[in-house]
């Protein structure tokens, strides 16, 4: 997966190339769907949002500016944002979140999880594992649950200032852990 290839794909999509959208979908569907399943914990909702995300990519690809970030970041930020939006609007959010067992996730084919993604995932998980729990939890609650710093403070029963510091420090530490690997990550 090379960022420049993704840039070409996004340019082709902006030029209304259906095949390019299909290619981008094939490249990122398992990452994005995994992310949406983590956020929504509901297969039907996650698939619906995944569809929304790629239709938005189709309509908004021309908004992507390669000088302002990598395609991976753009796509994932878009996907996560739509996922959190859906989470917030789900009236039955608690029911969904507390449904208990996670929904079964289909086995991923080798073609869909190439070595690149597996390697990256390993690196990020390793970097996260090195963060103290007090820094990691605010990051996870913000990123996957869409909670604001105030909400996290309430959830963790911690002073707001402390949460702010831990969140910032946590993200800085994550960046340091991943430093130098960014190019190969594509973000």
């Amino acid at each position, binding site marked *: 997966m090379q960022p420049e290839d993704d840039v070409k794909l996004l340019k082709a999509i902006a030029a209304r190339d259906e095949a390019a959208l299909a290619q981008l979908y094939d490249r990122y569907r398992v990452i994005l769907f995994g992310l949406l*399943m983590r956020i929504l914990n509901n297969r039907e909702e996650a698939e619906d949002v995944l569809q929304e995300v790629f239709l938005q990519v189709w309509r908004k690809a021309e908004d992507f500016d390669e000088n302002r970030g990598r395609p991976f970041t753009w796509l994932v930020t878009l996907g996560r944002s739509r996922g959190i939006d859906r989470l917030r609007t789900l009236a039955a959010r608690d029911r969904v979140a507390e449904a208990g067992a996670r929904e079964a996730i289909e086995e991923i084919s080798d073609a869909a999880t190439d070595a690149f993604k597996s390697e990256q995932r390993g690196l990020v998980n390793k970097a996260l594992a090195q963060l103290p729990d007090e820094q990691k939890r605010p990051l996870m609650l913000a990123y996957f649950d869409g909670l604001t710093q105030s909400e996290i403070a309430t959830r963790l029963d911690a002073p707001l200032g402390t949460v702010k510091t831990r969140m910032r420090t946590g993200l800085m530490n994550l960046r340091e852990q991943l430093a130098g690997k960014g190019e190969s990550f594509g973000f």
Partner: protein
Amino acid sequence: MVHDDYKEMIPARALSALDAAEEQALNEHLENCAECRKDLEDWQATAAALSLTPDPAEPSPQVRERILSEVRKDLSSSTPEVIPFRSTPKRNIWSSFGSLGAIAAVVLLTALVIGLAVLWRQNQRFTRDREFVELVNTPGARVSELSGVDPGQVATAKLAYDRTGRAILMASKLPSVPQGKAYQLWFIAGNKPPMPGKTFVPDSAGNAVLKDELPREALDANVFAITVEPASGSTAPTSPIYLRSF
């Protein structure tokens, strides 16, 4: 608040974790601070790494179908610039010419084109048709018809191929391509990236015959497509699909 205060808020903004009032204040600052905007982009890239931590998951194949179905609907109702090399918009031809001379020129040109097409057909048709028919009659051979993505397109093509990968594409009514460009055939199998075929340029009448060898993996292709690419060919499509099998 001063610049450094805003700067401290940016990591939380990258996680969209600021409270509404803080976010609004920071957004106003970002409008006038290029340094902070760049910072935000960097922090967003770091935050995006978190997306890799959940278990990858496979959506049902219907999601892909639904997305592409919506896209096709959008394309079929979209504006002319969507499709490259589309013929010029339809208009009242008689109002387009100012003189009988121009009309005569069109008549002559049309006659010339028809004459050339007839000659071409006489010379080429037997050979290419025979080869095509031979291929179609090979045991296990398949024929796939390609048509325009845009309903207004008149170009069509047929692709015959057998189990050994021998393939012949016959296309007609193709618009000419600009200098340095050519049509390129693609083989698409399931969710895999399109596999490139050979490039070709139609003759003056818009006809083209291409003999190609399908890669082994392309024998399972369920979609064949044609795009316009640089004459040297591309490894991945760089323009919208012009013709495709349905």
